[in-house]
């Protein structure tokens, strides 16, 4: 059987395929960062699973009104050696910590409905105190909004591993929401959380966060 399209060499076919995949993803608006092939970084996981507090899904379906938008989490740089199973465990545990903070601080309310005493689950006592002082930034307490709808939830984890165990995590995150009410605009919160493991739990001891309207 003959085809109407020219037959491409395998390498070229792969490149063009990657381009088309990028194009499709950009057009769909589901990817904000650049595309890369799966050989770009040997220490990072080439594919990412999407995880959320209560559920795990291979693909995030973005619909017009998503009932619940899952967090896309992936492992970025790993300094040291960490077996794959432990990478996965760290990713799930740390993503759960980030999710709980997002839910409590940004997604469950705004303005006066924000409960600062419960806004920083998973933070150390000192970090909670600092974050409370930065509540305009670290929560939506400064916002007057009728509704908050998450548009994007992304986390990328850089790990330090010693003796094949993860010792610290830098969680780079990007949370985007749509706020309706006083303003009907998109809000972005992004930055880094710093975590170490204390008493068998990952705890946030520091942060570097920015917040602004898109």
């Amino acid at each position: 059987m003959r085809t109407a399209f020219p037959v491409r060499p395998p390498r070229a076919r792969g490149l063009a395929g990657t381009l088309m995949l990028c194009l499709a993803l950009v057009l769909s608006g589901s990817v904000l960062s650049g595309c890369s092939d799966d050989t770009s970084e040997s220490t990072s996981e080439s594919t990412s699973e999407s995880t959320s507090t209560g559920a795990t899904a291979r693909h995030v379906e973005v619909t017009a009104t998503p009932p619940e938008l899952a967090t896309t989490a992936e492992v970025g740089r790993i300094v040291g050696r960490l077996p794959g199973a432990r990478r996965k465990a760290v990713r799930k545990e740390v993503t759960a910590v980030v999710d709980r903070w997002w839910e409590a601080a940004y997604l469950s309310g705004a303005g006066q409905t924000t409960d600062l005493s419960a806004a920083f689950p998973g933070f150390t006592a000192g970090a909670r105190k600092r974050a409370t002082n930065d509540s305009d930034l670290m929560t939506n307490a400064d916002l007057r909004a009728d509704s908050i709808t998450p548009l994007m939830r992304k986390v990328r984890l850089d790990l330090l591993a010693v003796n094949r165990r993860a010792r610290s995590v830098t969680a780079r995150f990007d949370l985007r929401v749509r706020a309706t009410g006083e303003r009907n605009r998109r809000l972005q919160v992004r930055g880094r959380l710093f975590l170490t493991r204390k008493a068998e739990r990952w705890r946030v001891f520091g942060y570097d966060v920015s917040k602004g309207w898109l």
Partner: protein
Amino acid sequence: MSRPTVDLARSLRMGLLALVLAAAAFVVPHSSVQPAGVELVRIKRAGGVSVGPDVIWILAVGSDARPGQDMLRSRGDALQLVGINTKTDSATAIGVPRDSWVAIPGHGMQKINAALYFGGPRAMAGAMANLTGITPDYVMVTRFPFFEDMVDEIGGIEVRNPRAFKDPYLKKDGFKSGRIHLGGYDAMAFSRIRKELPGGDFDRSANQQRTLRGIHARIRSQADRPGFIERGVMTVLKHMSTNLGPAELFELAQAVAQVEPGRITTCVIGGRIGSTAGQSVVFPNVAQARRLGDAARHDATLKGC
């Protein structure tokens, strides 16, 4: 050019064009919803870490150990008592001339640089506490080759050098005055040379503080690069003598990265040159040392020198 190759090139060009247009459509705001030509957007930003007490004191010791010698039983040539306030993101460094004649716990009066030789990090911490009234929480000891490697690994540092100076052994062509870039070896030489400096040991200690500022500025500027802090911690674990675990080192490194350059204060403890027990020594200004210690103990900030 063969037909398949031409088709391939055309399809790639079309793909790229579509990609660029699609990306442009995504990032360029639509004019109908963006009536203003310029919009000033307020971005809030804050950062901070909490690693236990608000103020942490670290005694940084540059050992003169030669290859093969035990670094913890050598003499401490560079001595800087560094305080970090994680609540205010400020830091201070109190420099001590290495020949300072002080009381070393259990060993009487000696040059402070001998404390490491006599009693290891604990004795050095005790000697510093006797002088300044501040007991360091951590003692970090390193040797010069590692120090050089570390500075090279972070890409070198910038320091503001108040005067030109040179040394026939360590830096024949010397250091220019003004803002200069130092690689690993030069940072070591800049921190060790004293004979050409008018203030001798005191000026050398001040140069060590300039080096610390340069290292801090470099760490701060690179801290958000993925893996930068993690690699630094791994390097420290391999080359520096410390009883801290990786997690604690990571927390400390993040605390250092959060310090704001404008909130760093430094001072070198003064004194007079003299001799005792057949040695040329520095008799430190103990009253000043205590005053500095009292001033900085709780907030890692010096109001004066």
